[in-house]
C-alpha cells in the first residue's frame, strides 16, 4: 500500500522515530522514510514529495497549523487516544501495543484515510461505489456489498456527482466504461 511512497516520521524521541521508520520499512517497503525531530528541519523537496506524515501527538499540537494544512496526509501517533482526533476526523495510531496490532491499525488507517485519488479526484472508495453503480446495483445492494451504511453510499454518490459533474446512472456507467472500471459489451 505504501510502495513508491515517500514518508516522513516526526518525533522528538530519536528511538521512537527510528523504531517506526524501521517498522514501516520492514512491513510496507515504501520508497523512502526519513525521520525528523521537527517540521522545521524538513526541506522543500522532502515536503513536496511527501505522501504521508507520521507525527507524534506533541509535535502535532506544537505545529498545529503546519499539519492541519496537510491533514489528509497525516497520521498522529501516541500512547493514548487523543480525544480531539475524533472530533476533527484525524487519524490516530496507538503505538503502545504489540507489532501485530500496530500493523492492523496502520492497515486500517491507510485504507480509510490515505485516499488513492484518480486523476479526476475520486478516492478509491468512490471508485468502488461508482463501479457498482455502473454495474447496475441499487444503493442498498452497494451498501451491503461494501459493508457500509445506505447513508454513506448516498453521500459517496453525491460526492462523485459533484466531482465529475455527472448526474445520471447512464452517465456514471459511461464514465466507468471509458475509464476501464467496467467491461464494455459489444
Amino acid at each position, binding site marked *: 500500500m505504501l510502495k513508491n511512497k515517500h514518508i516522513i516520521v516526526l518525533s522528538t524521541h530519536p528511538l521512537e522515530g527510528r523504531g517506526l521508520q524501521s517498522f514501516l520499512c520492514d512491513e510496507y517497503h515504501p520508497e523512502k522514510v526519513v525521520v525528523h525531530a521537527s517540521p522545521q528541519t524538513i526541506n522543500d523537496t522532502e515536503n513536496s514529495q511527501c505522501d504521508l506524515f507520521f507525527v507524534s501527538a506533541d509535535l502535532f499540537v506544537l505545529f498545529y497549523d503546519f499539519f492541519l494544512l496537510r491533514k489528509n496526509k497525516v497520521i498522529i501517533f501516541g500512547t493514548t487516544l487523543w480525544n480531539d482526533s475524533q472530533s476533527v476526523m484525524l487519524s490516530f495510531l496507538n503505538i503502545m501495543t504489540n507489532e501485530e496490532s500496530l500493523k492492523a491499525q496502520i492497515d486500517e488507517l491507510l485504507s480509510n484515510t490515505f485516499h488513492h485519488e484518480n486523476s*479526476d479526484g475520486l478516492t478509491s472508495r468512490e471508485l468502488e461505489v461508482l463501479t457498482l453503480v455502473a454495474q447496475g446495483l441499487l444503493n442498498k445492494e452497494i451498501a451491503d456489498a461494501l459493508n457500509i451504511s445506505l447513508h454513506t453510499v448516498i453521500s459517496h454518490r453525491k460526492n462523485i456527482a459533484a466531482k*465529475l*459533474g*455527472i*448526474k*445520471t446512472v*447512464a*452517465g456514471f456507467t*459511461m*464514465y466507468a*466504461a*471509458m*475509464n476501464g472500471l467496467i467491461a*464494455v459489451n*459489444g
Partner: protein
Amino acid sequence: MALITTDMKLSEVILQHYVLMPVIRRFGIHLGFGEKTILKICQENNLDADLMVSILNLYVHPTYTPDLTLSAQQLVATVSYLKQTNALIHESQLPNVERHLQALMHYSFAKNKALGLINNFFTEIKTELQQRIEKDNDERFPSILAFAASASPVIHETHQEPSLREQQESLDEKIFDLRSLLMKYLTGEADENLCYAVFFALYTLENDIRQYNNVCQSLLTPAVKAMIKQHNAQK
C-alpha cells in the same frame, strides 16, 4: 434582463436572444417580419400573443413563472406548439446530432474506441426520446385535445404527469452528461472539429428538451389540472 412583452419588436427580441429563432419557427412565423411588434405579427398569423410571449419568456428566463392560465383555445395552441417542437426534434435535431456523430465515428473510431461508447449512449438517449415523442403524440396530446374540445374526462393527466416528467427530466440530464463526458473525459485522438459539432448539436437538443419540459410544467399541466378540477366541480 427585462421580460419580453407583446409591444416589443420581434426583430429586436430575436437579435438580443438568438436562441429564440427555432421557437418562432415552431409558431409558424417566417423570416422577413420587418419592424413589426410581436402583437402585430401574432394578429397577422392568427396566433395568441400572450401565449407566445409566455413561451418566449420561459425560454430565455430560467426562473420565469408565467402569469397566465390557459384558456381552452390557448391549450390547443400550446399542444400544437409542443407537437411542432417534437417534429423538429425528430426531423431535424436528432438527425443533426447523428450526422455529426457518424462523421466523428467514421474519421476517428479506428483510433479512439471510446467514441463507440459515446455513440452507444446517444443511441440509448435517441430511443428514449423517440418513445417519449411517440407517446406524447399518440396518447397524451390527443387526450388533452379531446378533453379541451368536449370537456369529457377522457384523460388521467394528474396521474400521467409525474412519470412523464421524470422521464423527460432524465432525458435532458442524460444529454448533459453525454456532453460532459465528451468535453471532459474523452481522451485520445478524435477529430476536434467534429467533436465540437457534436457538442453544439447536443447542446441545442438538450436546451429544447428542457424548454419543452418547462412549457409542460408551467403552462400545460396547470391548465389541464384546472380543467379537470372544474369538470369535477360541475359534476
